[in-house]
């Protein structure tokens, strides 16, 4: 069971209070209807699935109820950062910094 820091509750909470919600920063475009099939495929099906740093969403579903983003390493399972939904994706440089 992981321990996850909720950026809204500002505290560490047990994983059992959370639900994983898949890859983060997949943008649903305003003009959905105009997407090509390939774009739709990319948005809906294709995933980074990295062995390494993953940007992912969690929902503190049995806590404050908020969705938020996290950076976690998929080999160590360690969280490097959590941040609120809507905050922009940390830059690669910033992520590299966190890795240290």
């Amino acid at each position, binding site marked *: *069971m992981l321990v996850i820091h909720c950026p*809204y*509750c*500002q*505290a560490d*909470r*047990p994983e*059992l*209070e959370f639900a994983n919600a898949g890859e983060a920063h997949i943008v649903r475009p305003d003009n959905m209807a105009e997407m090509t099939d390939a774009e739709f495929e990319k948005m809906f099906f294709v995933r980074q699935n990295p062995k390494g740093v993953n940007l992912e969403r969690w929902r*503190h579903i*049995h*806590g*404050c*109820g*908020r969705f938020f983003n996290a950076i976690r390493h998929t080999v160590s399972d360690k969280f490097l950062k959590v941040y609120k939904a809507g905050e922009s994706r940390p830059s690669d440089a910033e992520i590299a910094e966190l890795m240290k």
Partner: protein
Amino acid sequence: MAKANVATRDNPTSGNRLANASVSIESAPPASRISFRATPKGAKDFGKTLDLDLPVKPGQSTSKSTLSALWIGPDEWLIIDTKNPIDKLMPRRENANFCATDISHRNVAFIVSGNGAENTLCASCPRDLSLSAFPVGSASRTIFGKAEVVLLRTGKTSFRLECWRSFSPYVWDLLVDGAHDAHI
């Protein structure tokens, strides 16, 4: 006109109580409850109406007499009044800054108290409920076995635990189970 007997409120665990040497658990009397969702301004305004500031810090609660306000999320509070009817609590008008929903009957509460109260809960709740991590007045939605609950620490050795009504027999049984080992 035919009228049902609706004077009393009834839930699946009404009247349940149990006590052993370390802990006592009882079903709390019916209460009025609001799920209150609001912008910061909406929350402030409602605090004025209630004459009780809604807590703004995560995990905290405020209370006054029979009324408590629990921080649940950044825009969500659980308002509980153990005495006054719901009509007295509900805001009169709707506006764009808040949403108040009557959930008085959605929840059932248990009062868990005694030296073994924390242990009773820790049989099924993965949270750190020690006094330092979850001091008196702390409030939180969390998980209890396979049920979602809201916990409020009302004293050093007493908690109020709210769950959805259909989960209450399950939660009750879990509490009874936890009470068995509460002295450890």
